[in-house]
């Protein structure tokens, strides 16, 4: 097996036991790694009683997986998965950083974390040694403090214990207070301003009493199948990425003005609008005012689309974050009507320290602010906070209430979908019409109403990961934007942003050079990607214990309200057009008219027990 370290570690936190797990070559070829293998592992272990498994209970499994491409393809990433406390399905959520490379160099392709630790703990991987350690002293600490403290402690311990070198910091993923308090909008964080957000796995980590996982590997990356070919392709993709100059210079940050102003598809005031003309929020304002590091990269990345932002003066002095990338420019900015770079960075800095996913918490903060705007929730209910559009400090206060589950924060911590249901019941109103989510997952900052952005009418309703803007159902399925393509990145586990300058075929060639799997374009799209999506789909349809999604492939109601402002004013999709796209998509992926993968499709993909369990659970 080439490209793989060859073994996974299963860490049972309840019994404090570590065991080795191996997958045979045919399983790895069928599921690759990362998101694909996560679907396989979760289904094999939990499929039969999927609807009963509480995502925040000890029976859930937290997966931290690399893929065969990790470390080789530019931009190393880690795939975080498990049963999602947002969708009750399976989400493959990836985060950049050096942790996955350290893990692979330590000889592990991934960690399968089960059970629940008795007290706050962290896991330390040092080559073949894996230890579960006490993390009481960092429990409750914010993101930056947690990282600096644990990283230093371990580094200095190594310096004393292993005298062969001055040690560098280990790779690390961790949670903030939001994860500890099991907020469903919490992410698994890495470095600063890096996070696996979609899916809410910060809450899963918190439910396991797991504060952080650190890894240091001193070995080489695994051998690859055809090193000469791999190096040739590596050189090509590096050169192509380096030539993509706008992307390198501004990262996704340049979209903050463009998507809002030209494409009319950026969330503004909880998606009440999708257009703005705030030149104060254009990327040059960030570049010239707050970027202290203009090229900030993760392992092996020549693109460096991240930028380090620090507010050096004024009322938000001391705030630190990345670019911010487009998504958090939007969700910590335009969606809350915050239109100054410094305030946007301040909010990002606050929510990262608390351990939130910027998209998910931005979605629920926008939702709360709209309820405040409409007088549905009041200042009194918000502990005296006047949650007015554009008031970054007010939003920061509510974010803290959410992280600590204080007052109304306790309900908002459940995420937009569940909060809308709970508050709706309390207020005896339909609040789902203000909830901009799909399958319990807040929708990424790319709307569909103007028709000018990449997501299609059925993208969010039919996507295997709900509102995830990096995994959208798309026609044709072979399009670079489709989730059948991003599945390659999430399962090979490398960065999407180093793939824009090359074709999907190129990436399949790279995968083959690393693994020797000899997978064809057709096999990828029609079999492998479709197989993984079918499992994710089955898990989503079954759902439970609370939300289930059979028969609810829908866009949020807001997407049918005509755009009120901008050059696309009046535009909104027609329901019949959405339904038409849905039917076409179902046909393309082999699902019936209700969106259930047909027995024929599942059997063709070798998913016999998915067929049996799915039909039984749905009563079909």
């Amino acid at each position: 097996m080439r490209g793989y370290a060859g073994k996974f570690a299963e860490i049972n936190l309840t019994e404090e036991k570590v065991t080795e797990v191996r997958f045979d070559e045919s399983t790895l070829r069928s599921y690759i790694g990362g998101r694909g293998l996560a679907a396989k592992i979760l289904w094999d272990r939990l499929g039969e009683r999927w609807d009963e498994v509480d995502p925040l209970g000890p029976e859930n499994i937290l997966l931290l997986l690399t893929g065969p491409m990790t470390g080789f393809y530019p931009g190393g990433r880690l795939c975080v998965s498990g049963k999602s406390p947002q969708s009750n399905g399976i989400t493959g959520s990836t985060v950049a950083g050096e942790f996955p490379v350290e893990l692979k160099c330590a000889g592990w392709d991934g960690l399968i974390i089960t059970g629940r630790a008795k007290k706050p703990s962290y896991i330390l991987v040092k080559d073949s040694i894996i230890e579960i350690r006490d993390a009481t002293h960092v429990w409750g600490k914010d993101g930056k403090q947690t990282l600096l403290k644990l990283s230093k402690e371990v580094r200095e311990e190594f310096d004393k214990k292993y005298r062969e070198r001055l040690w560098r910091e280990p790779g690390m993923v961790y949670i903030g207070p939001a994860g500890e308090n099991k907020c469903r909008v919490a992410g698994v964080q890495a470095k600063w301003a890096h996070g696996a957000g979609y899916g809410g796995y910060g809450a899963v980590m918190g439910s396991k009493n797991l504060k952080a996982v650190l890894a240091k590997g001193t070995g080489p990356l695994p051998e690859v199948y055809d090193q000469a070919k791999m190096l040739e392709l590596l050189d090509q993709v590096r050169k192509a990425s380096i030539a993509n100059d706008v992307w390198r210079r501004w990262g996704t940050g340049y979209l903050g003005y463009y998507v809002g102003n030209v494409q009319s598809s950026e969330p503004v005031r909880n998606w009440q609008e999708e257009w703005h003309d705030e030149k104060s929020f254009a990327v040059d304002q960030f570049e010239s005012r707050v970027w202290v590091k203009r090229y900030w990269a993760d392992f092996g990345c020549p693109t460096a689309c991240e930028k380090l932002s620090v507010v050096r003066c004024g009322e938000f002095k001391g705030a630190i974050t990345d670019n911010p990338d487009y998504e958090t420019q939007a969700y910590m900015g335009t969606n809350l009507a915050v239109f100054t770079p410094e305030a946007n960075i301040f909010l990002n800095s606050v929510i990262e320290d608390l351990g939130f996913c910027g998209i998910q918490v931005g979605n629920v903060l926008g939702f709360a602010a709209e309820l405040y705007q409409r007088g549905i929730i009041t200042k009194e209910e918000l502990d005296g906070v006047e949650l007015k559009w554009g008031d970054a400090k007010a939003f920061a206060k509510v974010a803290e209430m959410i992280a600590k589950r204080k007052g109304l924060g306790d309900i908002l911590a459940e995420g937009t979908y569940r909060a809308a249901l709970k508050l709706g019941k309390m207020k005896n109103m339909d609040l789902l019409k203000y909830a901009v989510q799909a399958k319990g997952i807040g929708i990424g900052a790319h709307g569909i109403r103007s028709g000018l952005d990449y997501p299609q009418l059925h993208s969010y309703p039919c996507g295997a990961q709900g509102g995830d803007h990096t995994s959208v159902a798309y026609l044709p399925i072979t399009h670079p934007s489709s989730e059948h393509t991003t599945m390659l990145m999430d399962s090979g586990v490398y960065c999407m942003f180093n793939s824009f300058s090359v074709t999907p075929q190129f990436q399949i060639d790279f995968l083959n050079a690393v693994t020797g799997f000899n997978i064809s374009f057709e096999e990828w799209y029609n079999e492998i990607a479709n197989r993984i999506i079918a499992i994710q789909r089955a898990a989503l349809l079954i759902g439970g214990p609370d939300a289930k999604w059979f028969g609810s492939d829908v866009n949020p109601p807001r997407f049918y309200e005509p755009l009120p402002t901008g050059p696309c004013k009046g535009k909104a999709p027609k329901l019949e057009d959405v339904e038409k796209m849905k039917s076409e998509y179902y046909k393309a992926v082999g699902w019936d008219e209700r969106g259930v993968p047909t027995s024929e499709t599942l059997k063709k993909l070798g998913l016999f027990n998915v067929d049996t369990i799915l039909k039984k659970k749905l009563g079909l």
Partner: protein
Amino acid sequence: MSSKQVWITRDFLRCSGCRMCEIACSLSHEGRIWPEASRIRVFMYAPGIEFPHLCAQCHDYPCVEACPTKPKALSVDEKTGAVHVDREKCISCGNCIRACPGHVPFLHPGDNKATICDLCNGDPQCVKICREAGFDCLNVVKYDRGQGEALNYRVYARHPRAIAEGLTELMFGEKIEV
């Protein structure tokens, strides 16, 4: 041919933290991607504060001085000025690591022998990739050994903690203990 030696300059503020230098170095020396065997290592005591750490070829070579074997396992390559390690003679004592003001050398994770940048015989691979990517954190300069430059270069052989704390002051506007 000029008798000038090469030195790798480092502009810390330009380091993106991409570690392509480590990939290039380990591919060139080990035939594998092997970050902890790379002679150039990017330290990140705090995220955002990434910088390369590698041999500065001190004019007085304290590592060579500290090498206890007879004859010494460590010697100076007259052509490049790099520290040469005779792996047969090295006894893995670690004296060179402790003698180095920057603790730059390390014992190789494979054969446990002292490992130090060899300047790729005058054509450093780490510099090549850094410049190809346009980050330009690393550069090659030529100099005459024994002149003032050599003395100055030694100041780059500092403990990474000191470098990192200095950089936090510069980047974040306040000193962060790392």
